[in-house]
């Protein structure tokens, strides 16, 4: 073994690697705060992916055509996959995924507030793909350049697949927006309900947040909540115009000077209410997740028993 390098030197090397846009890999030295921040972030990201299967999974049996159903099944399966890529990345930091699931199940770790809203019509599936996944892409693309290698690599896979999610949503929305008056109404109603929660997805302004500043210095976070939200609005308003749907914001206007859209005040009281557990579906989402985990226990146990039986047989043969 080489002699242990002094901690300040290790920390300097670590920061120098990040400042040079290098990547930190699993067994590299890293500050404990960096490790903890990443575990928390990747775990809550993973939780959001698997809880995110529920609002849309709700419509699989009622999709309007076989084509839409096949697409929706593939999309929901992708969300499960994204969760697994992310739990896999979290585990490279020395945490056990069963423990992360426990923390989710008892409500100590959270998932995105957006999944605590109900999907009351088929148009909601379209709105989620277009708006919610559109917002997710804004968040996730910068993470493909995150300083932690395994997280960045997982995000590259996720972003490729997310692009399909957004497009299928936009396509489904296009069909409704150009359909019968009732379908148009359904599309508009979904936009009315999903627009503001989608803007809340970026979180309150973080200009003063010490956590955000630290995440930026560590190359985990690249853009502020407000920057990402503005990008999302700028990208999405023309898409709504193309669909002929109205964004439910009377203050929305184009600012020639800045080259950006100006939008109205977000109701953060609603955001905090949903975050604290009092959104429309918080209890249902968590109860469903816990039930799915508990009811799947016998499958995991059976697979384990089968593996043990065969392992003992091959030992017997070898002996």
């Amino acid at each position, binding site marked *: 073994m080489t002699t242990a390098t002094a901690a300040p030197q290790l920390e300097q090397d670590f920061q120098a690697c990040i400042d040079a846009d290098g990547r930190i890999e699993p067994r590299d030295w890293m500050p404990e705060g960096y490790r903890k921040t990443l575990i928390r972030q990747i775990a*809550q990201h993973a939780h959001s992916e698997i809880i995110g299967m529920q609002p849309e999974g709700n419509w699989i049996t009622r999709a309007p055509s076989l084509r839409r159903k096949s697409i929706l099944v593939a999309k929901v399966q992708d969300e499960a996959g994204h969760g697994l890529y992310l739990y896999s990345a979290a585990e490279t930091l020395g945490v056990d995924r069963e423990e992360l699931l*426990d923390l989710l199940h008892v409500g100590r770790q959270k998932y995105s507030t957006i999944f605590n809203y109900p999907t009351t019509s088929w148009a909601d599936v379209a709105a989620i793909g277009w708006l919610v996944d559109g917002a997710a892409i804004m968040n996730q693309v910068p993470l493909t350049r995150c300083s932690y290698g395994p997280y960045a690599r997982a995000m590259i896979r996720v972003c490729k697949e997310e692009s399909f999610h957004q497009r299928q949503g936009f396509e489904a929305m296009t069909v409704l927006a150009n359909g019968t008056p009732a379908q148009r109404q359904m599309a508009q109603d979904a936009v009315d309900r999903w627009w503001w929660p989608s803007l809340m997805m970026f979180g309150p302004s973080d200009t003063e947040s010490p956590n955000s500043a630290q995440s930026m210095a560590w190359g985990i976070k690249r853009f502020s909540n407000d920057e990402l939200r503005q990008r999302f609005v700028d990208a999405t308003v023309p898409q709504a115009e193309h669909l002929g749907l109205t964004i439910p914001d009377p203050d929305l206007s184009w600012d020639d000077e800045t080259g950006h859209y100006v939008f109205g005040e977000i109701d953060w009281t609603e955001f905090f209410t949903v975050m604290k557990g009092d959104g429309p579906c918080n209890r249902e989402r968590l109860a469903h997740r816990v039930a799915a985990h508990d009811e799947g226990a016998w499958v995991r146990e059976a697979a384990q028993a*089968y593996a043990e039986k065969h392992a003992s047989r091959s030992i017997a043969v070898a002996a």
Partner: protein
Amino acid sequence: MSDYSAEGGHGAIPTSGVPSDEGGSKRSQPLWEVFVRSRRGLSHTHVGSLHAPDAHMALRNARDLYTRRQEGVSLWVVAATDIVASSPDEKDAFFDPAGDKPYRHPTFYDVPEGLTHL
């Protein structure tokens, strides 16, 4: 001032008051590292990992998790505990021997102007 960030990918989640992990005991099924050959003529490349009770299930899970879009024509799964890795702490000393041997590269040598196939 906010302790909520868009870090959740799918939306803002708290960045404070949430535990990362508590160093609890490991009770997941064995971990398998997954390698995919994306097409014939290329090597298998590491793509990630998954948990499964045995190699057979690991292979099936790897198909569902890592090749949903025809990303591969062949898969390897390797028990993570069977991988022997060089230590990052010793990477300087370990890889040093190659550091002072630039003559192993063709660019080390001067080629006279105008000559080809050299």
